[in-house]
């Protein structure tokens, strides 16, 4: 095992076999595999227990069949159909097959799942998860009240403590170091900024795993944490590596209206119903078979449609209701206590006796860093970058296709986090360290100095707000060429203002002013990729709904978008080149998607 550290010219140097960027669910699941077998460092912007995995509520899917008949083949079918046939089917097979051990692993690690009367892990219904290829909802989601993500995050952190995993907390990774070798480009390490001191650290590693989560902060109304700014995805992008399916962004149907705070789909799994202003259970019209438990893209669209058609509730008719009142206090207090409290705290609405105002909220990126089934990052449609891995929301395998099913992301982080950890260790066993260039940290040092010492006049907060507003207005649940072009033009303007941002805090310690400015750069980059990819996909599929192209077009578009940053920047725009990648089909031919 290699593990050293030193300081040269004010820059700290460390050496570990495996570097994991991100301390959320995927990163810690990887660390639990890697740390006992190889020198491992987790470099994380937040204390691990602050990660947004902890905000996941409803459950983790696995066909345990603890409460009723189920099979992982049904789970695969649901995942493929839920993804509107953009899901890579071999990847979905792995996800659903390994789901079962992934749940048992967590239970064995100590996760306190809710239990059945005979002491097994209890399971609940969730959107898009069905018995026998769509016949009826099935109980597949393993859960711990409505804090399943919290329990997963805590359990993984507890086991990292058990294994003595080394964390670099509040270290903000800003660059991936790649070196040209006779064998091609290789991973050499990572450059990070220590928030507490403002100092720069260069980590040399044989293998690097990106587990940096999503980028929901490109939107204004979002269930995502303030810290979910797509840093990892942005780093990969700036290295000239591709991003896949970025136009597919999930809007969770039930955000608290006006706030975006998540109310789990598990509420509908337990029987809650969506109603419009007149009290109608409108999902019966949109998904006659499974109604409120249709996949998120369909439910979110239906809700927005109700509002557009004038059937929204409230003084401005701009939301619908989640009705839990028939569930009873007992179910709410024992199975959905957290969301009950959120509604009480943040809206002053008691779900026991009142309907809760809800509206879709930006929730999850289906797209991200393309990987193969071994969590290895790809530099094009097929070529693996040896030693570089990605897992969790930042990655795109693609197990979620055009629309992720609820409870499949807690599953994803566990299955592919584990794969990334194991494969990184295997790689590190035989690989040598790649030499770091002497100027490894120069780019980051220069960028931070320019920002910190700049004399600009633009406000980070204002640019970010403008970005989030245009994305909410123009690249949300429904999109058209016109709205997307508007968003693109707005982003271009904001990008041209960005180099002129003013940092007021010139200090080094806990400079969160500087941090937010850097984060904004990643948000601007990624928002543009989302919009450009969305303009290019002239069809409607999953979460990507084009009003001007309202149907799915399998002839031309049943393929993944691959976006590349080119050297040719034009004005305020990054150079973006788009390409396609075939979907891997095993058993399920695309058919019309009805629920």
């Amino acid at each position, binding site marked *: 095992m290699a593990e050293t550290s030193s300081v040269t010219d004010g820059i700290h140097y460390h050496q570990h076999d495996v570097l994991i960027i991100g301390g959320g669910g995927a990163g810690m699941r990887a660390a639990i595999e890697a740390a006992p077998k190889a020198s491992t460092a987790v470099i994380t912007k937040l204390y691990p227990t602050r990660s947004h995995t902890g905000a996941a509520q409803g459950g983790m899917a696995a066909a345990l069949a603890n409460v009723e008949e189920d099979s992982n083949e049904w789970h695969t079918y649901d995942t493929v159909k839920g993804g509107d046939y953009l899901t890579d089917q071999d990847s979905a097979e792995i996800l659903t097959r390994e789901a079962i051990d992934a749940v048992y692993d967590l239970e064995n690690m100590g996760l306190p799942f809710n239990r059945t009367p005979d002491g097994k892990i209890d399971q609940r219904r969730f959107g898009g998860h069905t018995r026998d290829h769509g016949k009826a909802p099935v109980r597949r989601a393993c859960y711990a009240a409505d804090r399943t993500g919290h329990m997963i995050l*805590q359990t993984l952190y507890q086991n990292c403590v058990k294994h003595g995993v080394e964390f670099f907390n509040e270290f903000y990774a800003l660059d991936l170091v790649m070196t040209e070798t006779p064998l091609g480009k290789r991973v050499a390490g990572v450059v990070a900024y220590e928030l507490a001191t403002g100092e720069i650290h260069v980590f040399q590693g044989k293998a690097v795993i990106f587990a940096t989560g999503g980028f929901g902060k490109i939107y204004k109304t979002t269930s995502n944490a*303030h810290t979910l700014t797509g840093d990892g995805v942005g780093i990969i992008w700036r290295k000239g590596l591709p991003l896949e399916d970025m136009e597919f962004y999930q809007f969770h149907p039930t955000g608290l209206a006006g706030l975006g705070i998540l109310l789990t789909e598990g509420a509908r799994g337990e029987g809650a119903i969506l109603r419009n202003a007149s009290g109608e259970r409108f999902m019966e019209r949109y998904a006659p078979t499974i109604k409120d438990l249709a996949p998120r893209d369909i439910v979110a669209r239906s809700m927005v449609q109700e509002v557009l058609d004038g059937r929204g509730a409230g003084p401005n008719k701009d939301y619908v209701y989640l009705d839990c009142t028939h569930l009873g206090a007992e179910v709410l207090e024992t199975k959905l206590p957290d969301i009950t409290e959120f509604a009480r705290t943040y809206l002053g609405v008691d779900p026991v006796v009142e309907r809760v105002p809800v509206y879709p909220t930006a929730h999850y990126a289906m797209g991200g860093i393309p990987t193969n089934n071994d969590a290895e990052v790809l530099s094009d449609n097929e070529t693996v970058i040896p030693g570089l891995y990605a897992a969790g929301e930042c990655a795109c395998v693609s197990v979620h296709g055009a629309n992720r099913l609820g409870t499949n992301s807690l599953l994803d982080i566990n299955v592919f986090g584990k794969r990334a950890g194991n494969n990184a260790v295997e790689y590190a066993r035989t690989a040598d360290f790649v030499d770091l260039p002497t100027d490894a940290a120069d780019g980051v040092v220069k960028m931070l100095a320019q920002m910190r010492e700049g004399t600009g006049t633009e*406000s980070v907060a204002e640019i970010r707000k403008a970005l989030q507003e245009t994305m909410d207005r123009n690249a949300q649940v429904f999109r058209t060429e016109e709205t997307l072009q508007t968003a693109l033009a707005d982003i271009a303007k904001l990008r041209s203002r960005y180099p002129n941002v003013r*940092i007021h805090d010139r200090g080094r310690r806990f400079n969160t002013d500087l941090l937010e400015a850097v984060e904004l750069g990643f948000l601007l980059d990624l928002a543009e990729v989302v919009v450009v990819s969305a303009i290019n996909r002239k069809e409607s599929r999953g979460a990507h709904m084009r009003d001007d192209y309202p149907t799915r077009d399998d002839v031309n578009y049943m393929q993944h978008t691959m976006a590349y940053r080119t050297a040719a920047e034009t004005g305020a725009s990054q150079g973006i080149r788009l390409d396609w990648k075939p979907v891997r089909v095993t058993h399920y031919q695309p058919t019309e998607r009805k629920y």
Partner: protein
Amino acid sequence: MSDNQLPQGDPKGQDSGVHAAQSGPTGAPTPMADRPDTASTDDQSSAHQVAEAAAQSSTEPKPVENAYDGADRETQPAPSHDAPQSFNVTVIVRRFDPEVDDEPRWVDYDVQMYPTERILDALHRIKWEQDPSLAFRRSCAHGICGSDAMRINGKNRLACKALVKDFDISKPIYVEAIKGLPLEKDLIVNMEPFFDSFREIQPFLQASGKPEKERHQTIAQRERFDDTTKCILCAACTTSCPVFWTDGQYFGPAAIVNAHRFIFDSRDEASQVRLDILNDKEGVWRCRTTFNCTDACPRGIQVTKAIAEVKQALISGVKL
């Protein structure tokens, strides 16, 4: 589950029709009238005495004084869609920049707020519109990640769960870092000593053998430790504890809560190890049952009760 001790009070209050101005910290710790740091301590102490008296009874007392009581929240109009009135709030933040300041200093900010907004929104408004150098931690912004525990009008709260309308906005709202951990900058403290205590109690399941599937556990066994699984490690409890303030070596409530979570887990086999750790002079016996921790917990965990159960397990030597 019936005893709801969440800080915002009884959610089932009906039609009291009381609004923000009336739900302020009447008779509660309204510390720092002249802003010295020590004033808040005194106020906490008086709250302790009340709580201690209440603690004589065997059941968990409701906090007698509620600095920040939203019992009437029920009757507030839903969301921001009712074009609510904004109002001006003075927020006074205890700032400290170690690169510039010798001592912390209080700085006033006037902020335009809406009733449904939270103290975190006020801090963001200050940072994003007035003074971007203000430093604080936050992430999820809805009470799950535990980043933004701070001392607000002398009581530990998550800034993202403290609603502005639950304060008396005719007076300034004081915001400072949690106490007892080294102050790093503004509202940021060094969390390492806190996590060190957590790690010391072996906070992970210890069970022999590798079952083929899941270990079984009855619903009742699972329920036994449910309350303490809610902990988000925000440190609001530990840094509200007067014992911890005077003796940083004390494990503190959060570490004990997390020990409790495993001691009472039927699957765990290392309860005695953790009990031995907490039998230390810096362990569970240092708790003086002031209930500050229970009052501070943003997750509504019955912290003092959990500590009492650990004490009881030490005395009786059996798993309850």
